[in-house]
């Protein structure tokens, strides 16, 4: 400032400072009215960025919570279903083991038991076809179509169109057709033959038992399986190849995954290729619960599927002749699995079936308990997410919300300063020498 202070100088400075005070007052008032610490990125860029980041995490957590709830209801329903099934199966099995163990005295019950066993098989499949909403629980990746269907004669069980007993066809003894070798030669000539093709080649040829994923089936394999065989040998081989293909399909279907984000850090290796462990598999495949394929542990080639086993045992029991109090092969109906077996074989089969059924029951119970463990995990996850949600909410409030007491205090102070400024202004500008001249 110069050595001379004029009226206008004081006026200008006063106006400028008063404006600043008014601005501060307005800001303090805004803080009280909006209850926010900041109202734009400019006021506090770091806090604004943090606030939005927290809100993003909040919505993601909400999504994960919803997903967890949805998954939980699916698993819970599945668990309840299976629990009911296991209970229902316990009774017939106990009766069966009682009958067989009692050395054939309670004869007339066998036929009735056969019917019960058949009904149990149907009821088992029925449970596996349960829906939640409009999706089938045990349908794996094909939740809109009925998973298990019986063939017309009621003897073949299909899972999404594939026979659950696949794997029973033996390799024919005749020389194989040249289809496989031709495809390999063509592929190698074109330079497109890679490890995947080699894996499928060995699998079809029967040299390798490593089952490839049916999603990776190469085009030449599809073309090969579409062909029409010309003679009986080729037909036999075609059946064999198709059966191998079915086994591959069943295995793939049992390993299907539905990717759900439950807050385990969802990330992908590459597009459509999520990192294992960063997602939750929401798919349940019925095959894993009631078994599939052919039992390769003995030479009988029995099915691995529980419902089929129940029906086969029922078939055996239906050959029981009450008059003779023994199995009668002539009573076996054509087309039933008991057809063509001798009396001893029938007897032996009954015991074998019972053992397998008992083993199968244990397996179902195991899976049922596993479902329970998964459900519990989902519940824990839900609690974790709820806590996370609350914490994030608190953090957001901490960043954004102003402490009302503090804001009001600040506002009062600014108002006081403003009033003081006004008062001074009033007194500052009035006096000059002229007032004192006479």
């Amino acid at each position, binding site marked *: 400032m110069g050595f*001379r202070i004029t009226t206008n100088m004081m006026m200008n400075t006063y106006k400028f400072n008063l404006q600043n005070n008014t601005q501060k007052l307005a800001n303090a008032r805004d803080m009280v009215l909006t209850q926010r610490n900041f109202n*734009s990125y*400019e006021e506090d860029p770091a806090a604004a960025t943090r606030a939005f980041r927290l809100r993003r995490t909040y919505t*993601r957590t909400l999504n994960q919570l*919803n997903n967890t709830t949805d998954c939980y209801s699916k698993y819970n329903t599945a668990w309840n279903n299976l629990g009911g099934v296991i209970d229902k199966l316990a009774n017939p099995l106990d009766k069966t083991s009682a009958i067989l163990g009692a050395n054939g005295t309670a004869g007339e019950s066998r036929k009735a038991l056969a019917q019960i066993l058949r009904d149990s098989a149907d009821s088992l499949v029925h449970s596996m076809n349960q829906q939640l909403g409009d999706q089938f629980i045990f349908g794996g990746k094909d939740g809109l179509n009925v998973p298990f269907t019986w063939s017309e004669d009621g003897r073949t069980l299909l899972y999404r169109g594939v026979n659950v007993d696949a794997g029973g066809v033996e390799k024919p003894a005749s020389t194989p057709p040249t289809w496989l070798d031709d495809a390999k030669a063509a592929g190698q000539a074109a330079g497109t033959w890679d490890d995947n093709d080699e894996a499928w080649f060995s699998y079809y040829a029967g040299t390798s038992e490593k089952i490839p994923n049916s999603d990776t089936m190469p085009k030449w394999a599809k073309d090969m399986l579409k062909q029409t065989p010309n003679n009986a040998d080729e037909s036999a081989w075609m059946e064999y190849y198709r059966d191998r293909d079915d086994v591959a399909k069943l295995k793939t279907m049992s390993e299907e995954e539905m990717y759900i984000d439950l807050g385990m850090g969802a990330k992908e290796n590459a597009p459509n290729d999520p990192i294992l462990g960063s997602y939750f598999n929401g798919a349940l495949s019925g095959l894993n619960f009631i078994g599939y394929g052919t039992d390769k542990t003995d030479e009988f080639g029995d099915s691995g599927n529980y419902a089929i086993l129940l029906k086969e045992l029922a078939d055996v029991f239906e050959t029981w002749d009450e008059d003779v109090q023994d199995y009668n092969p002539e009573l076996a109906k054509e087309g039933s699995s008991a057809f063509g077996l001798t009396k001893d074989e029938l007897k032996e089969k009954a015991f074998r079936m019972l053992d397998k059924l008992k083993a199968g029951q244990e397996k179902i119970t195991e899976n049922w308990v596993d479902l329970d463990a998964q459900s519990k995990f989902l519940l824990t996850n839900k609690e974790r997410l709820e806590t996370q949600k609350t914490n994030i909410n608190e953090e957001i409030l901490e960043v954004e919300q102003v402490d009302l007491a503090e804001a009001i205090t600040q506002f009062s102070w600014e108002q006081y300063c403003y009033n003081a400024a006004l008062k001074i202004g009033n007194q500052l500008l009035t006096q000059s020498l002229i007032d004192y001249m006479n």
Partner: protein
Amino acid sequence: MAVIGTFGSFTAARLGIYASQSALNVTGNNISNINTKGYTRQRLDLVSLHSDGDARYQNSYNLNIGYGVLADSVSQLRDPFMDIRYRDMNSSVGSYEAMVKGLDQLVDILDEVGQGTGEFGIIEGAFNEVVQMLNNLNYRPGTEEYDTIVRSAMQSMTRYFNSYADSLAVVRENLTQDLKEDVESVNTILEQIRDLNVQIRDAGLFGDQALELRDARNVLIDELSGYMKIDVRYDMEKIDEFSSIERINISIANSGTPPIKLIQGIYGTQLEMPEMAALRNPEFDPSKPQCNKYISQESDLAKGIIKYTNNEREALRDNAGAVLNDNTAQGRLTALGYNGNALDAATFYDEANMGPYLIKNPDGTFTGTSDRNAATQVDNAMKNSEENRLWMQLKPLVDEQGRYMRDQYNQEIKETVDLSDVQLYGSLQSKRELITEEGEFASQEDIDFDENANIKRGVPYYQHALDSLAQQFAKMFNEANRLNFDQVKEAYVLVADPADPNQKVFADKDGNPFRDPDGNTISETYFDDVLQQIADVKADNTKTEKEKMDEIEALELEAYDKMELLRQSGELVPEWAFYNGGVLLSNKGDGNDPTNITAANITISKDWSTGAVRILNTKKPDTFDPRNPDKPLEHTTADDNIYHMISLMDQKLEYKAGTTVDDAKGGEDTFFKGTFQEMLANINLTLAMDKSTANGQYNSYTQKALNLENNRQSVSGVDLNDEATSMMMFQKSYSAACQLMTTLDSMLDKLINGTIR
């Protein structure tokens, strides 16, 4: 002189009274003008009246007594140095004020803090909504209602983008309009200053100081200094041999030697920002001399009389200092070396390349020219044009009658002076920069005109950044919703190529080879070839990054075009019969074209809005069943692609300037890497930082300007205490002079009336 006569003493008293009365008038003038803007306090200059001469007859008893006081003149108390400092500061204030106001408008549009449902933000909230809906769909793939919900969420989001982009365009247009009005204001001020100069000069010729007019002129100059940074200098203008008069020169500060003149005495210029302007040559170097440009219109080459302005004369020296000679045969000037031989034209400047303006040739190349009228005209200040360069120029200086100023050789100066991109500084320049600067998206040409162009950010930067985000979003989702290139040949039915039975081509729905609108078939290996070509381009080290980017983009564009045609007319194989993917986001609501998407035109594609295209659940085909080749095993609830889309929302992606603005310098560099929402936050943060800096500067400069104004007022402001003191002083001297008068009167009365009876 001794004797003043009997009644001579009255003179002193009378002069005293007159002087006091005048001083009181001046004081009264000061007091009544205390609140007049720009008023400088005036002061009556009093000089003592005396005679210096010698008496004709010497008298040793002479007493040299003064004859009284003369009111010599009224002068102003003003410090011109203060004015210079104040005006410098004022240009900074003007500059930052304009910037703050402009950025404020942007903040109103882009800032989402505390807005939206639940204060989650508007576009931020829309992104969150999309993720939520995708999660819902993820759990229930294959249900159309949930697909529709995702579509609505995305539609809201695209609408927000459209609305933001439209608002930004409106802001740009408003700022342009504002700038035009500012140019008009500047012109009015310049005209008023010039007219005042005429009045002041006339008054000065008659000996009048014209203080009030000078004050008015100072107020106008202060106002002008807010618009641009100016230099005010005073020099003397020769009227005739014996007398000169003060003249004011206002020129643009830091505009070199000689400076660019705005006002020179009674001559003033007008600022122009025409709607169309000649395209300038960014490589033009005005320090190089030019031949042919400056031949005066009146030059009469046939007569051998050539008249040049002094600018022209300087321009006619080449780098070696040689003076040009005229070559009447060609009508051009050629340079002569000191030995008299003609210099090679190549050592001179090459007009075809170095002319200040450019002509765009039909083949896309440019040639230089010095003829402003022949140059290609570009949008300069057109309504609603995105290409406005906002170049300004100054008309030749004219007086109030419209006569041109003449140079020292008495030649009229009639050239229009172009103002470069960086010569102005003040609110005009700030507004220009807000309307035109593109920041990271600036092209090489922009940088040639202004070397800091890639760190200045105006509305176009924010428009491009928003476009960049919209483009990236559309690109990633469209890509995710379509087949990968290596899957196309698996997905569609192939038939034998009619041209070559060993090859296969894609079939149409009737089983015939599919033909595109040009009549060509698409070979089975086409998409694999495209993949290979892309890989080759990436591996090619002879190309620049930008070239690679452009080539890959072109290859992908063509391939996606063909994929779209196939989608509409090709036949899917049974394992892919579920495929309902396609373009999700396009640039028009009634089409499916995903090219050239910007924030203003992004929208849901037509096919998605009609349901022909849906979110693709999975990119894995159904399982082939050899027993039923036409009915594969379905995967109705496979969700890998939806999951992929969800993870896209949180994937860190690279943003490159070159994808949005083709000629951006450094377009292949990544200027930001982050998720979609992080990019939006980044745009806001950049804006916040810019605004915060500008605000801080504005406050600081305002404070400094206030201090300087106070300093000015301290010298030239009216203080009531001062004036009151003066009033008292002159009142006393008035009474004293009156008292003297009455004393003299009574003395003489005694002498005249009392001595002789």
